[in-house]
């Protein structure tokens, strides 16, 4: 009888958006606590931990991703307004942006091209399929742009979304270690590199370092989004010829 009630409750809850939404917040808050308790260590990335926990729970309970997303979409939706809101910290750095426009533009071009060409080249040499390579090429930019680019060029948009998130997590985890190695101390340079290579997750990480780092990351993320959308279709024929 109790067993029957429980399964009835499970059937009810698993069909309602409440469960997916609550689970997302609990997984994230738990991951965030862990992140704080380790003193904000970059390797204890809250997105990575929350995703691993969620995938584990969904797999264990045999819940399809679509059912989960019915609830989680409310969180996902906020990405739109949050992206728009990035204009505000960006505006906070307007004096420095004006002064640094040309250096930032040159850096952007070099960094964006590096991200696309190296991703494609390394993937091709290691034997990834063409559809995977197209899905991989725009992985340094924010999810909606990367997915649109991949779809337009014949890649797999949802694979791109997964690769974009993995890139962001990886970039956020290793950036500070790499900067220490290279002797990069300027917060503007650190932020710009993080936003360029690791989009929103790199930007979220940059905001944890300082508001200035975050603002430059937001700028790099936005401008690299525009540039990669323009650059990838143009580079693609060259890439498939070079690495055929």
């Amino acid at each position: 009888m109790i067993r029957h009630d429980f399964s009835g409750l499970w059937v009810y809850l698993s069909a309602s958006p409440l469960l997916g939404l609550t689970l997302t917040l609990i997984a994230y808050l738990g991951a965030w606590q862990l992140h704080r308790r380790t003193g904000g260590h970059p390797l204890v990335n809250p997105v990575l931990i929350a995703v691993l926990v969620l995938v584990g729970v969904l797999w264990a309970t045999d819940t399809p991703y679509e059912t989960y997303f019915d609830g989680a979409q409310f969180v996902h939706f906020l990405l739109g307004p949050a992206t728009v809101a990035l204009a505000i910290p960006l505006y906070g750095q307007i004096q420095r942006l004006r002064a640094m426009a040309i250096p930032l533009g040159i850096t952007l071009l070099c960094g964006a091209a590096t991200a696309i060409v190296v991703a494609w080249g390394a993937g091709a040499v290691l034997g990834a399929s063409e559809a995977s390579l197209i899905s991989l090429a725009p992985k340094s930019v924010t999810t909606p742009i990367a997915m649109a680019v991949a779809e337009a060029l014949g890649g797999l948009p949802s694979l791109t979304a997964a690769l974009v998130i993995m890139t962001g997590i990886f970039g956020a985890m290793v950036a500070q270690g790499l900067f220490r190695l290279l002797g990069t101390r300027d917060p503007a340079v650190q932020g710009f590199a993080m936003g360029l290579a690791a989009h929103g997750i790199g930007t979220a990480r940059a905001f944890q370092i300082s508001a200035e780092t975050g603002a430059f990351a937001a700028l790099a993320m936005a401008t690299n989004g525009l540039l990669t959308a323009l650059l990838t279709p143009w580079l693609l024929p060259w890439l498939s010829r070079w690495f055929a």
Partner: protein
Amino acid sequence: MLNAITLLLVFQLAGEVIARGLGIPLPGPVLGMALLFVALILRGGPGKNLQATANGLLGHLSLLFVPAGAGIMLHADRLASEWQALLAALVISTLAALAVSALVLTVILRRRGSGS
């Protein structure tokens, strides 16, 4: 706060409409951010409300990537057969992009600093 959220959504919607209407290959929110940035320049900065709401939204920006991140489970098959190539390409290219942009920007800023 309600004003600020509405404003953000209005700019997102405007970005969406312009992108679709003119066939610009950019997501609406990114265009919306550009429009809001221009509006802030014209108006001379955000009000207190907008500033506070933006801080709230951006304070936990990482949370917003979690639902899309869990979508990786949809690609278990492809990842199982190609994961070494994809992971290696991802790691190498992300490190390369970080290093190239940090070094290029540092070198240009240093030259400029010593030149002026």
